[in-house]
């Protein structure tokens, strides 16, 4: 899930910490918890109550005229500011699309950079309206931390990279290999599971951060480097001779990444969810940034496109948005496929194939419920 060193480990501690305080709000009578954290809990309840009192994030965003969108402090292809300070990337495009859908302007976004340590508190405290930060959708984040994942914009998974000269073509041939692995992450646990399930042995080389891992791997301290597949591809793209290294076909874990919002504000959750779905549906229906102006000018033959672009029906009104909300969202940086190609696709240095992230019609997992 992360290119950055420690975010998964940080999440573990974050979940314990905020899990406890959030619980103390919900089960305010539970004296067992309250006794321990009575002071902290009381203050947290006060803070959360203030956050809940300001519910109606959709109205807040409209009134503010700006969307506060949490992104990473920098992850290749997913979110990073360029030399002029303009943010771009795969996750950033989701923020811009939501801003365009709600406010009609894809630049009406205040990007709030968050680290793995600060992202969940920033969202829970209301500092940001939504988080689009390559965050894995897991049970505990959804249920225990009380966030709503509105969908998946990238299906990631843990993979392996090895030098070509090692001569392996499958991770199952890695018996006895030394593996560079970031300590304290779920990738470490996934790795152990995989090797045990296949009854082969390995020797872990513990590494603190991803950049250290790159150096160690290139220096030959380990035979194989494992982390999320998108991270491996991005890492390999930075090598002097990327062609000397191959990504092994096995993917040993599920890391669905997606944008998330706070629990309990369904209008806002719907706005973000259906903006993401609009991007996906646009690709499925062939609506692109090139032809959207024509298609939205008047109702065409395809009723679903008409409903999506607001030339027919009143879907925008149901969401509490303008009729051309989806058109605005798609016009910012194109449909899902265009966003993918522009930021992380095969034409970029990162060069990720669509793979699991192809449309369901092409054998992938990207699938939007119908606009009806």
């Amino acid at each position: 899930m992360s290119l950055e060193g420690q975010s998964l480990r940080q999440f573990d501690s974050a979940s314990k910490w905020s899990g406890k305080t959030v619980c103390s709000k919900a089960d305010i009578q539970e004296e067992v918890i309250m006794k321990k954290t009575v002071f902290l809990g009381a203050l947290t309840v006060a803070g959360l109550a203030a956050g809940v009192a300001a519910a109606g994030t959709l109205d807040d965003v409209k009134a503010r005229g700006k969307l506060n969108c949490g992104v990473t402090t920098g992850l290749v292809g997913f979110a990073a500011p360029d030399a002029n300070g303009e943010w771009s990337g795969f996750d950033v495009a989701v923020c811009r699309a939501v801003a365009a859908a709600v406010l009609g302007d894809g630049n009406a976004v205040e990007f709030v950079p968050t680290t793995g340590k600060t992202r969940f508190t920033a969202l829970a405290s209301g500092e940001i309206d939504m988080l689009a930060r390559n965050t894995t959708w897991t049970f505990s984040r959804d249920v225990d931390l009380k966030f709503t994942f509105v969908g998946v914009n990238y299906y990631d998974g843990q993979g392996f990279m090895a030098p070509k000269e090692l001569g392996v073509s499958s991770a199952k041939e890695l018996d006895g290999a030394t593996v560079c692995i970031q300590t304290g992450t779920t990738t470490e646990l996934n790795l152990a599971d995989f090797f045990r399930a296949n009854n082969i042995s390995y020797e872990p080389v513990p590494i603190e951060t991803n950049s250290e891992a790159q150096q160690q791997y290139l220096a030959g301290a380990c035979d194989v480097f494992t982390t999320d597949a998108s991270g491996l591809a991005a890492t390999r793209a930075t090598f002097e001779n990327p062609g000397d290294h191959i990504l092994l076909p096995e993917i040993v874990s599920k890391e669905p990444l997606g944008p998330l919002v706070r629990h309990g504000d369904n209008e806002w959750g719907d706005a973000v969810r259906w903006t993401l779905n609009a991007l996906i549906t646009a690709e499925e229906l062939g609506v692109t940034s090139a032809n959207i102006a024509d298609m939205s000018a008047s109702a065409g033959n395809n009723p679903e496109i008409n409903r999506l672009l607001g030339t027919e029906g009143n879907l925008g009104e149901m969401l509490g948005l303008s009729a051309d909300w989806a058109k605005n969202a798609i016009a910012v940086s194109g449909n899902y496929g265009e966003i993918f190609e522009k930021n992380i696709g095969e034409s970029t240095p990162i060069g990720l194939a669509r793979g699991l992230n192809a449309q369901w019609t092409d054998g992938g997992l990207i699938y939007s419920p119908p606009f009806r």
Partner: protein
Amino acid sequence: MSNSNSSPVAFVRETFLDEQPAPTSAAGPVKWVKDNLFPTWANALLTVVALYMVYVLLSSSMPWLLSGVWNAESLAGCREVLDGQTGACFAVLTERWNQLLFGFKYPPDQYWRPTLAFALMFAALAPVLFFDLPRKLLIVTALFPFVAYWLIWGGTILAPIFALLGVIAGYVVYERFVKGSFAAGFLGGVAAAFVVWIIGGMLIPEGASENALLSAVPSRDLGGFMLNMMLGLTCVSLSVPLGIALALGRQSDLPLIKVICVVFIEFIRGVPLITLLFVASVMLSYFFPPNTGVDLFLRVVIMITMFSAAYIAEVIRGGLAALPKGQYEAADSLGLDYAQAMRLIILPQALKISIPGIVNVAVGLFKDTVLVSVISMFDLVGMIRGPIVASTDWNGIYWELYLFASVLFFVVCYGISQYSQWLERRLATDHR
């Protein structure tokens, strides 16, 4: 006389011989080398090994440094230019120069503002650091915080003006009442300053910052080395007076003050700085309602100041403890009250003793400001770790950036350390 000497002297030299250079084996570079590098077999061996090490280091690093590429669009572009040769890719520094210094969100057409504030900083620091300069220059120092605030953050000029007025009002009240008692003067001054600030805050019209002469720049847009300098300078200058107050409070005879100071110092010293920073950035946002609360920069300044004040307090306590008891008694016997005794007798001596320790804390504090990168503030290291390394263009570049950061920090820290050595020599009045 000469006549009585029958055998005349055959030769009398009437001029001195010219001075001859010493033999090469007894002076000059040869002797130096012989004495210092090859006096014994063991030393000669060490010299050879050391020379070899230097050669290995230089021969591996100099080609990398000297054939560095300074103009390229991306890491891939650098590698194209180098074409397989060894060489650094300094192009990242030239392309991201402004981002490294000012962060990535400070408006580029306003870069002159922090630059001007940086230049003014030297004018403001000079009279404090070099006390041979005319004392009137201290007016520049007193005005500097307000001018610098206005330059860097912009917005309405009324805010720094009212802040300044509050300080002036506080000072006037203090001057008036301090003759009666120090406490009355101090507390009265603080109260007067707050009154002016509150009234001033109400007088500033809503939206005054929108069409101000200098456009307003929010704190979250600050970054780069500028942020390190701002945090370092603010926190050091705030924590020295606070540290002195804490050190004196810890020696107080009043149990309440003493307990407060001891608890504060021991608590802060017992907690890592990074946890304090997390409290500032993460926990406090839970306690404030959304869209309100204290500016993140201010929260961080408060936390770092508290942290370094606790350390400086302990350093100064050491200085106070090093003074002979006779100094305190001498002050009492002159009939000085507590404030006078401290100001005129005790503190000048205690602070002089404490200079190395205080400078040590200041240098450490300045370097600790990079820790704010973990709470998503984009200081120099934050910029490197986050936006720059994560950009598609520059992903995979490390040495050049961190080398640059270390050069910047070294220059500042070495400067501080050289100043403190000068200061110690300047203040040396004892006979060692």
